[in-house]
């Protein structure tokens, strides 16, 4: 039984605008950590909110743990968010400003557990996210990262079957983001819960998720393991989600492939072998790597970006060849 | 904690809102327009004498008529009292007033001061007169209301807004005497003669005459009496600066209006209510009005107060007041036409 099953879900906010979600069908297995990726307005937040019960689908059905939660157009079949037993971490935390850390975490527990037990549970959850010692702090007294972790603790406290995270790392600086990302992955792996993370940051998706769903204009355009979506994007849109990608026309049958800049290899003119003839347009040093912009001769409409470790003394105007390493086999980054 | 708060709040509300319903003593309820402190003393005297408590609702006359109409048979009111014959007539026409069971009750009141069908009776009346600055105006220059339209009064007349019912009832007598067209011309001319656009109360008109903003004011007599006995010294001085002229004394007489009272038709305590009316018309109460509110007592043969004697001899316009009430809307329409705000 899949943890989540969407069939033909459509959500349209107003008649004049295109739908936020259009006929989306998807299954998510137990224990999977899925990242939803897409540009803003692609429907990823709506996806999450429909799962959480904060939006109702216009058409299609949502099932969680095998139970039907909402059927488009049938109001009585709708299960309100409070009955869905899931945890949601909001973009800005959405912490209750009038409650301290303990009370924030206890919010969802008071109704289901007796006092002694919820107190223990709160302590447990705060420890889990590393906030022990900050029990009596109010949200505005915490730092950005602490607030996000508090939000996570609050969502985890009632032991939900399913955890949804909406851009949990936005508004954080890179270092904090990296640390929190690691923390969250550890926590999620530790408790073995199904989780869905909405993010626009490719690193979040690649580092935390076991599977990535790419959405565009309300539709799922690619689904696969992080390395699969990274190295074998289905189209330009998917490719661009994870940084620069170069369009390469392969072989005689003119199939289009996408190559990442770090897959490039420079072959000087004098060395014989495979590769595409190119001329160098620009060279810039970026830390240990060199960013080289080249013009492939066979594709006058495209420019390729290559990250090269030791390009020698390449200068603009120089001619040579670029070869692409064969794409590594799709690896499930974490089983 | 929250629950107990809500319960106690609810209980409090219930107690609070229901409290006026629970009253035991024998009582009558009076809807009145009159705002005079003296009336309360009269009510107290009545309670002392008969043991009947008078409950009072004070509001505008027309609002009270509307309220009586909406409350219908369940109204707590037994009596309706206003300071204008027009509203009494309107109340009668709206069907909220009954008739006095005993015509003897109002025997002492002259016919023109009470309703022909016995729906209401005056308890006092007041004259709407001209008050002039005695240092600038000679009484010989004054004659009638109609003469106020004369050009010689350009920018010298002070009179209040036509929204006021006293002016409206004065207008009805003008219509009665001169016809609608004549009344319209009169209103236009008087409006032109005003020393300033109509504003303030009758008292303010008298004060302004004293200050010299205008030379004559049209006001009710008792206001002068109230100013003469005011708590404020400037008011007493203002009162000393003007004298009363009774217009149309040579003709139909000065315009008078009444404070009157009627019994509410659906009242269940008509007997008690009529007892109160009788009390109001009794010599002991009637004799107190001239001294306290400076109104003329409705019952003839009652001694007037010092001030009233000093103002001069009043000859009242005898046109039945109940007929005037019917012309009220017309009066307002003419005021509108004349541009008298």
């Amino acid at each position, binding site marked *: 039984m899949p943890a989540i099953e969407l069939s033909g879900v459509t959500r349209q906010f107003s008649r004049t605008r295109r739908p936020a979600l259009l006929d989306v069908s998807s299954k998510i297995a137990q224990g999977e950590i899925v990242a939803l990726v897409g540009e803003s307005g692609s429907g990823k937040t709506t996806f999450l909110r429909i799962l959480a019960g904060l939006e109702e689908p216009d058409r299609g059905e949502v099932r969680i743990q095998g139970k039907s939660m909402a059927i488009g157009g049938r109001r009585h079949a709708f299960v309100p968010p409070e009955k869905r037993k899931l945890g949601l971490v909001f973009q800005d935390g*959405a912490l209750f400003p009038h409650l301290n850390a303990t009370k924030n975490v206890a919010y969802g527990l008071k109704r289901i557990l007796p006092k002694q037990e919820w107190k223990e549970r709160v302590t447990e959850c705060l420890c889990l996210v590393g906030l022990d010692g900050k029990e009596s702090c109010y949200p505005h007294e915490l730092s950005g990262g602490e607030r996000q972790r508090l939000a996570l603790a609050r969502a985890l406290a009632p032991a939900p079957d399913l955890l949804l995270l909406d851009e949990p790392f936005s508004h954080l600086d890179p270092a904090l983001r990296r640390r929190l990302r690691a923390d969250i992955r550890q926590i999620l792996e530790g408790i073995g819960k199904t989780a869905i993370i909405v993010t626009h940051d490719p690193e979040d998706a690649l580092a935390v998720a076991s599977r990535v769903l790419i959405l565009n204009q309300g539709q799922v355009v690619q689904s696969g393991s992080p390395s699969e979506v990274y190295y074998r994007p289905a189209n330009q849109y998917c490719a661009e989600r994870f940084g620069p990608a170069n369009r390469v026309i392969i072989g005689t049958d003119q199939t289009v492939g996408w190559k990442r800049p770090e897959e490039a290899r420079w072959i000087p003119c004098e060395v014989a072998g495979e590769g595409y003839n190119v001329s160098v347009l620009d060279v810039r040093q970026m830390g240990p790597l060199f960013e080289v912009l080249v013009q492939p001769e066979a594709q006058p409409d495209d420019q390729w970006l290559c990250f090269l470790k030791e390009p020698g003394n390449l200068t603009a105007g120089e001619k040579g060849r670029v070869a692409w390493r064969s794409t590594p086999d799709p690896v499930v980054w974490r089983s | 904690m929250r629950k107990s708060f809500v319960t106690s709040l609810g209980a409090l509300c219930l107690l609070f809102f229901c409290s006026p319903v629970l009253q035991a003593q024998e009582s009558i309820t009076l809807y009145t327009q009159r705002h005079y402190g003296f009336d309360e003393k009269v009510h107290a005297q009545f309670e002392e004498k008969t043991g009947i408590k008078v409950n009072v609702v004070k509001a505008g006359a027309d609002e009270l008529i509307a309220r009586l109409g909406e409350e219908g048979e369940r109204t707590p009111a037994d009596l309706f009292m206003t300071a204008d014959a027009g509203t009494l007539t309107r109340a009668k026409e709206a069907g909220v007033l009954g008739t006095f069971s005993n015509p003897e009750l109002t025997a002492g009141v002259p016919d023109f001061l009470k309703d022909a069908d016995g729906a209401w009776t005056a308890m006092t009346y007041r004259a709407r007169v001209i008050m002039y600055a005695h240092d600038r105006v000679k009484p010989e220059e004054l004659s009638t209301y109609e003469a106020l339209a004369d050009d010689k009064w350009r920018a010298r007349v002070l009179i209040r807004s036509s929204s006021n019912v006293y002016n409206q009832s004065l207008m009805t007598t003008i219509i009665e005497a001169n016809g609608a067209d004549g009344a319209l011309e009169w209103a236009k001319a008087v409006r032109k003669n005003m020393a300033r656009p109509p504003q303030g109360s009758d008292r303010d008109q008298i004060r302004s005459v004293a200050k010299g903003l205008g030379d004559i004011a049209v006001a009710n007599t008792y206001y002068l009496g109230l100013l003469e006995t005011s708590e404020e010294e400037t008011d007493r001085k203002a009162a000393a600066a003007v004298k009363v002229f009774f217009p149309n004394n040579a003709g139909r007489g000065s315009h008078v209006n009444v404070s009157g009272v009627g019994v509410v038709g659906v009242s269940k305590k008509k007997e008690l209510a009529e007892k109160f009316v009788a009390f109001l018309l009794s010599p002991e109460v009637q004799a107190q009005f001239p001294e306290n509110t400076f109104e003329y007592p409705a019952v003839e043969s009652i001694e007037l107060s010092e001030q009233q004697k000093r103002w001069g001899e009043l000859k009242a316009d005898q046109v039945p007041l109940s007929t005037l009430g019917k012309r009220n809307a017309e009066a307002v329409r003419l005021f509108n036409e004349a541009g008298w705000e």
Partner: protein
Amino acid sequence: MAVLAYLFQPAAEWTHLVRTVLATYTWNTVIVVFGVVVLSMLLAVPSAWFVSRYEFWGRDWLSWALVLPLAIPTYVSGFVFYRGTEAATDFLIWVKLNVGIDAYFAAELGIRYGLLMIALAAVLYPYVYLACRASFAQQGKGPIEAARCLGRSRKSVFFSVALPMARPALAAGGLLVVMEVINDYGAVNIFGVPTLTEGIFRTWFNMGDKVSALRLAGVVMFVVAGLLLIEQFLRGRARYVETEGALAVPQRECLERWRQLRVLLWCLVPLVIGFCIPVIRLASWAVMYLKENGWGSLPFGEAFLRGTGLAVVTAIVVTLIATFFIYAVRLKRCHYRRCANRVANLGYTMPGTVVAVGVMAVFGAFDRASEAFLPVISGTLLAIAFAYFVRFFAIPSQLIRSGMDRMGKPLEEASRVLGERPLNTFLRVNVPLLRGAIFAAAMLMFVDILKELPLTLILRPANFETLATIAFSLAKEGRLQACALPSLMIIAISGIGLAFMQRWMSHLDRVTSRKEDCEC
């Protein structure tokens, strides 16, 4: 709705009204409304700006004291300021004798209209002040600092950035002022300026034409609705609210001494006009009265208790209902609920008397229907309370709605996802977070009810007096000195209430957001 139905019935006097007085009424209304709004903005906006942006001596108490004029009913300020026309009498007589009668009429008109506008603006400006102060406090430093960096002076920043950003607040506050002015009956009556509201009274009661009167009320409502639409249209798509960091209290700038003085004087002007002058005047009358009559003659003990009790209970109940109502509307953005919301707010645009008669009709019908099993409700306090509810519902509903809009949806959603039903979410999240707004709404309601006159006069049960009705009947008798005492008591009670509210709210501000002290 009943009023709307009347609009389409044949009306006997309507053509007569249109031909004669409608233009005057409308013109007077427009002039007075315009003048009062402009004056209130002049009084309110600079002081709100200074109080929220600069640190100067007296800022703390000024920031709440500037709200105090709200405690003074318009009819009281009306008769206090009308006395001012008497001061001008000598000047007018001089003009009349020396310049000519036309000049005299013009001068008289100018002085009267001017004083009327001042009398109204002086006690109504706090509506604009409150809205602007909140807006200025929320604007955040960003745009203003950006403008300063772009080379604008303090003054020019105010006009080019802060003021435009505060426009929704200006509009909201201004709209309240407009409605108060349109509904005012006391002050315009004293000054002899017939507005549409006076026209309604006159047509209804003196001409006996209910339908035309209600049509006039309809005209008033259309004017207000028109103003609302124009505002929304002008606002267009521009957004004025910075959503992020809305809670941060901006640091207030310190000023040099002489500038402090200047700012202080600016802020004192509205306070003096709106509060000190009326209160001192009333106090002197009250002293005169007490000298002659002594303390024994105070008959308002009971009125004080009953009126205040009614105001407290009604304010609390109505505010609670309003909070609940707003939440319900927010929960489900259905069309009919939004319409219900609009209709409920209409009560504020209707003159009190119209509301009163409508409420009487409703309860009359209800009583007739429930004769068998329920006691009569007409003429009880319940009827009054209901009328207050209809009349003033807009106040708590506006305040609480803006509070809820600012709160943002995620908090509620978080609560729902954490397993709380909507009702519990409301009690555990919305209510505690909005307690400032709820308290403020209840307080404003309380003050308004305490001052309220026409409804109370018409609907009250027998022997029921409030301070306002006593003050009114004494003023009607012309006993200004005696009337000063209950008026002062109204002002004192509502003043204390308002001051308390202001202090408490600023305390809340300090708790929820760290206050950065000004380092002078």
